[in-house]
Structures are given as C-alpha cells and as structure tokens.
C-alpha cells in the first residue's frame, strides 16, 4: 500500500476563497485518472470542476457535499 496523498482545494479559485462542495464524482475506493473531474465546487461566483492532480484511488473524503473549504485546505486523501 502506497502512502496517502492529499488533495487540496486548488489555488485557481483565489486566495482564501471559500467554496462549498457540490458533488463528489468519485466515492472512496474508486479509481481516478489524472485530469479527470474529481469534485465540483461552488464559489461565491462560479461553479468549478476540480481535476484530479494525479491518478490514484480515492481513500477518504474530508469535506463532504454541502460543507465548505478554503483554498489550500485538504478536501480528500488518495493513494
């Protein structure tokens, strides 16, 4: 088992911007390819699809649908 990697809310959304999680496209245990949409978030202005920064298997969702996170915050882990 490889080490857990962190998935953070990307900086493209702006510094210290709060976004709410709209929809996780993957569930824990599911495989994803680099670049594939992992999660859709909603900022004050736009809906944004967060692409997977690497290929892997989703381990744990830290910020669930309906909850919010700020840019840089860990929203999930994967390996």
């Amino acid at each position: 088992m490889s080490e857990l990697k962190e998935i953070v809310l990307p900086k493209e959304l702006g510094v210290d911007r709060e976004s709410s999680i709209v929809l996780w496209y993957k569930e824990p245990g599911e495989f994803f390819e680099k670049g594939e949409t992992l999660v859709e978030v909603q900022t004050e202005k736009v809906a944004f699809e967060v692409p997977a920064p690497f290929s892997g298997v989703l381990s744990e969702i830290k910020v669930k649908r309906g909850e919010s996170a700020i840019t840089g915050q860990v929203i999930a882990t994967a390996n």
Partner: protein
Amino acid sequence: METIKEKRKKLTGSKAMIQALEQEMNRDSNIFIMGEDIGKYGGIFGSTTGLYDKFGSDRIMDTPISETGFIGASVGAAAEGLRPVVELMFADFHGVVMDQIYNHIAKIHYMSGGNVKLPIVLMTAVGGGYSDAAQHSQTLYASFGHLPGLKVVAPTFPHDIKGMLITAIRDDNPVIFMFHKTLQGLGWMDQIDASLGPVPEEAYTIPLDKANIVREGKDVTIVGVQMMTVEALKAAEKLAEQGIDAEVIDLRSIKPIDKETILTSIAKTNRLVVVDEDYYSYGITAEISAIVASEGFKDLKAPIVRLAIPDVPIPYSRVMEKFVIPNADNIIDSVKKLVKI
C-alpha cells in the same frame, strides 16, 4: 414501458437532467433546446450546464427575454418535425405565454384532427423555500394540471428526473416537465440529501402516468409531490419512532394522475393526508380528495386532511415563508390526530 439499466452513479437532480438531455440529443439530431440563459450560462437552475460547449449555438439557443416569442417558436418548430425542449425559467412567468401554452401547445393536436403532432417538452423551475418572494416561488402544479391536452410531470428524485425527462422527450405529445429548484442540488442553494441519488448511466424511461410508493406502511397514506414528498418521508421516519406506520406516495405525475395507486393504498390504510406546495383552493389536495371521496369513500375511516399553502402570495420573509409552506412537523401533527379517529 419502464426500462432500467444497472450501472449507477450518484448524481444531483441537475446532473440527472443534463445527462438525460445530452443522451437524447446524441440519439436524435432533431432535438434542440431554447430558453433564457440556457446557453453558456447553463440555465439558472443548472438544467443545461455544459451542453452549449458540446452541441453549439444551433442546438442550444439562448433567446431574448420573450417567452411569448420563443415558446411560440417551439410550436412552429415542432409542427415542422423538430423536437424542441424549451425552458420557461420560472413557472411563475407562465402568464405572458399562456396563449401559446393552452391554446396552441395543448390544443393544436386536437384542432388539427390529430394531423399535427407537437412533441414539445416545456421544462420549468418551480418551488420556494429560499426567499425568492411571491413572483418566483410558486409551483403552480394545478394551474397546468387543469388544462386538457397537456401531460404535466413533477419528479422528485434524480433517478425519476432522468427517466421521466427521457420519456417526455420521446413522447410525441407536449409535456410540461416541472423541476424543483431545491431538488437540483445546486451549490448556492440548501443542499439537501434528497437532491443526490443513484442514477443509471445509460438512457432509460419511466412512465409519465405512474405514482411511486416511496415508503410502505399500513396506518395512513401520505401523498406528496417533490419537496412535499421529501417532507412526508421525514415525517414518516419520526412517526415510525412513535409506532405509526405511514405509507408515502410520490405523485410524480400531476396529469394524468395515477388514481389506482392512491385508491389501492387507501384501501389498505383507510386514512389520507395530501400535502401540496401549491395553493390550497382548487389544487392537488382538492383533486385527490375529490377522487377519493367519489371512488374510495367506502375505504375511509376518517376525514381527509389537506395541507397546502394557504391562499396567500408566498412571503419573502424566510420566517413567514417557512410558516406557509407545509413541512414534516405539520404532517406529523395531522397524522397523529388522524390515527386517533
């Protein structure tokens, strides 16, 4: 008629709608969409997000702010063999386009002796609960259900939203497809659990004339539609803790209405509560009560309870709005009184 495929993914109501539209547009090049802000913007309640980039401006057409114009244009397009899907941004705006809807869309098939078919889907966002005030919060289920010549559906869960939208698109008759804003699962609205659910990936159909028993029970029947189904299910969970076993019917279709499912349920439970997010007078609660009084009277052990928005404009004030829209607590109170009779 119902065809269900196995591979499922969790989607919001909005994503389920988009998937239905995309799959049908890929299948049939005669299908196109018109409406206000349904292009690049993707529909203000997320009904068409991403479709403009996939299909371009010939098939995803942003229109000027004239419901009379573009919904009227859908009549001509359909009469000439295309299959338009048009979005009336809020059901509340139907006033300016009522001639097109009830004299043209609803009646041309009849007036032409069956020679002209109008395979139009009119999608429209309904419902309140988010402080959008009196002119943007109505469901108006009954206003559309009253008119002969139209099928009117209002699915609740993502699975039904996709399946019923596909059936509506494939139907050669006009269908009013009402989607509830809160059930779209949008990031800027309250995100409730009911707006996310498993949806088969492939295209499938669900009939436009069948209600669905979403919870089985024996003590009382609660009939709801869209958010009132959601509230009824919440109420049923709490009632179960108190030993009352409620059956919940999700109406899904306003017209034609599935009398069979309702009457069969009442034959078992002998008690009925109808809950509606539309106005009280002349609405769904009145219609269902009349059906049951006429055709299921012998099965009733207690008077029918009707919960609906009192005959007032829906208030902007969040507190007052919550007061007028029926909720799980109102349903629980009614059911507890009803089962004692």
